[in-house]
């Protein structure tokens, strides 16, 4: 199937989608969907001719004949998928199987705050969805517009004023072999009202062997004094690809920590936009990419300092083996009034594979004068001297390399505030590096 055919299929699917919506087509929300579809039809899928997609071609992902609509609740045995959950602690869970909400696997709540689905919120919390829907995401992106056009299902988290989540929230999307090739377009809406806090872990997991393409959009609003931790574990099958767009708006005195762990999948594209709308807010953007043959990860981040006195700290690390490819594009915008801004960005890459490569580009646009900004991008190899030092102490080459890589990874993993997740990431990393360290870190 060609890219154009898939775009055509989506256009006709949109008509089918509208027909099933009945009365809803007259709402403001649906007007946004329709406009978004028109926008997508005008733009088409992004290609490498677009500056933002220069190093990441979607062509190999878009050649499949994906199913756009999903049916039924595929029965999954919890014991088979337990390992994808942080199962040693209690969590809220929003679980989808083949794009359809699975009430059987989920543990939602409406006590004190809401953890449920976006579709439920459209029915029951229309005031909230109307207020926030499509207000943060960058609709000028064709992929966002496509997601917005079909926005119907996803996670909905609303932390009410002062509410503190009693346990972390896990959002997991499974796809199964039976479902075949699937296009999944989850839409998450996350609102943290004043003084609230929550930890969120999101994951997409293909259990089958068919191509799966996820085009996900998250809109996140962090109001005054609220605190968000958002962790993404991308360790999917080599037949699965994801394009994620996350836009976060931060109000005064809010704190956000995001971390994305790109460890597996055919193609991972992560657009992360953070905008400071209120003073004294702080954001940490972390990323660890560890790829092997046939994998591609592209991180595009944009931090928009619109007001004074905000701090952003960005640390992305990448390790590329085999013929894997990495892209990092980090934009920092400091607007004219945003004095006393602190903005730090760091992107360090290690190339292991002879055919591996990485394109890294910091993009600083600073229009205020009283600011502290720094950035550093490095692309290198493992330190020979360090390697020799370790080997001279009896540590075999493979383990010595792994130890050095593990240390790099730990700089990012170590910042995760959830111990159980940290342990898992350590294990995942050790597994990827094919070592068994008998150590506690």
């Amino acid at each position: 199937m060609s890219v154009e055919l898939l775009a055509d299929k989506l256009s006709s699917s949109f008509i089918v989608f509208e027909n099933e919506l009945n009365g809803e087509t007259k709402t403001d929300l649906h007007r946004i969907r329709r406009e978004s579809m028109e926008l997508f039809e005008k733009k088409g899928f992004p290609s490498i001719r677009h500056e933002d997609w220069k190093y990441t071609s979607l062509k190999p992902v878009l050649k499949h004949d994906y199913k756009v609509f999903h049916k039924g609740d595929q029965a999954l045995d919890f014991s088979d998928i337990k390992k994808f959950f942080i199962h040693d602690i209690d969590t809220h869970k929003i679980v989808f199987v083949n794009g359809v909400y699975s009430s059987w696997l989920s543990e939602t709540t409406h006590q004190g705050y809401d953890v449920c689905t976006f579709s439920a919120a459209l029915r029951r919390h229309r005031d909230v969805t109307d207020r926030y829907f499509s207000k943060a995401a960058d609709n000028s992106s064709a992929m966002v517009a496509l997601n917005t056009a079909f926005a119907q299902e996803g996670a909905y988290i609303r932390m009410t004023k002062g509410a503190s989540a009693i346990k972390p929230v896990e959002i997991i999307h499974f796809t199964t072999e039976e479902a075949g090739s699937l296009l999944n377009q989850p839409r998450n809406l996350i609102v943290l009202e004043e003084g609230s806090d929550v930890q969120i872990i999101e994951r997409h997991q293909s259990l089958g062997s068919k191509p799966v393409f996820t085009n996900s959009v998250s809109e996140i609003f962090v109001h005054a004094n609220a605190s968000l931790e958002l962790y993404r574990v991308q360790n999917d099958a080599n037949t699965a690809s994801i394009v994620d767009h996350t836009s976060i708006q931060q109000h005064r005195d809010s704190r956000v920590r995001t971390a994305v762990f790109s460890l597996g999948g055919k193609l991972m594209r992560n657009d992360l936009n953070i905008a400071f709308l209120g003073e004294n807010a702080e954001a940490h953007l972390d990323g660890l990419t560890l790829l092997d043959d046939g994998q591609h990860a592209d991180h595009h981040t944009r931090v928009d300092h619109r007001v004074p006195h905000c701090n952003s700290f960005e640390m992305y690390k990448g390790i590329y083996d085999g013929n894997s490819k990495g892209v990092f594009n980090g934009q920092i915008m400091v607007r004219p009034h945003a004095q006393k801004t602190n903005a730090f960005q760091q992107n360090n890459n290690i190339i292991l594979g002879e055919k591996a490569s990485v394109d890294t580009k910091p993009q600083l646009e600073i229009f205020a004068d009283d600011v502290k900004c720094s950035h550093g991008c490095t692309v290198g190899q493992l330190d020979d001297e360090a390697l020799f030092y370790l080997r001279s102490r009896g540590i075999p080459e493979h383990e010595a390399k792994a130890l050095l890589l593990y240390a790099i990874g730990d700089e990012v993993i170590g910042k995760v505030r959830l111990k159980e997740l940290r342990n898992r990431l350590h294990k995942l990393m050790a597994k990827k590096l094919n070592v068994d360290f008998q150590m506690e870190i």
Partner: protein
Amino acid sequence: MLHIKNLHASIEDNKILKGINLEVRPGEVHAIMGPNGSGKSTLSSVIAGREEYEVTEGSIEFLNEDLLSLSPEERAHAGIFLSFQYPVEIPGVSLTNFIKTSMNETRKAKGLEPYPAKDLLKKMRDCLELLEMDKGFLSRSLNEGFSGGEKKRNEIFQMALLEPKLAILDETDSGLDIDALRIVASGVNKLRSPKKSFVLITHYQRLLNYIEPDYVHVLFNGKIVRSGGKELAHELESKGYDWIKQELAEV
């Protein structure tokens, strides 16, 4: 124990070692002295297996085995230890985890089970005490931010744990204060036994007051140009290297 015969080594086509002959028998302590750039660290790196150096001629045998065919880790497993002139800083790898990995990999290579964690910890504590090092070092990243002297002490700490058969100390005394020198020397002396040998690379006779060598060699321009007893070190200390250079020029 260690047999070096006519060893030639170069790096990036620069000939550094030009025919080294050296024999170290069990229990012996050899001191190697020589001006800066004469090839002392190169020799120790070649013995430890640094792959950047190319051995173009000659041989090294260790315990009757061809050392040059072994990887650096295999040499360590065989009982060779190099105390680095410039120990490498490795951020993110804690000293404890490093030691654990190092000790257990060495045991694994010998077909032994890993150390029980408790025993290992006790061993580490004992060696820390021997070298009068603070326990705090254990949780710090390997050599990161260590002072020059602390790095050297850490090398001897590792040596004390690994109990090598042959230890090469490349200027371990440089950068040590008087007390540290005494502590490090007593660490070395504790390990001395009829089966263990040492090669001390140093610029100062002072170290040899604490650790008495059986032989002293002078390395000059990639060759051992003179060997003698400990009195040779005294002679070098008072006269410098010029007289050797002169004698060589006359020949």
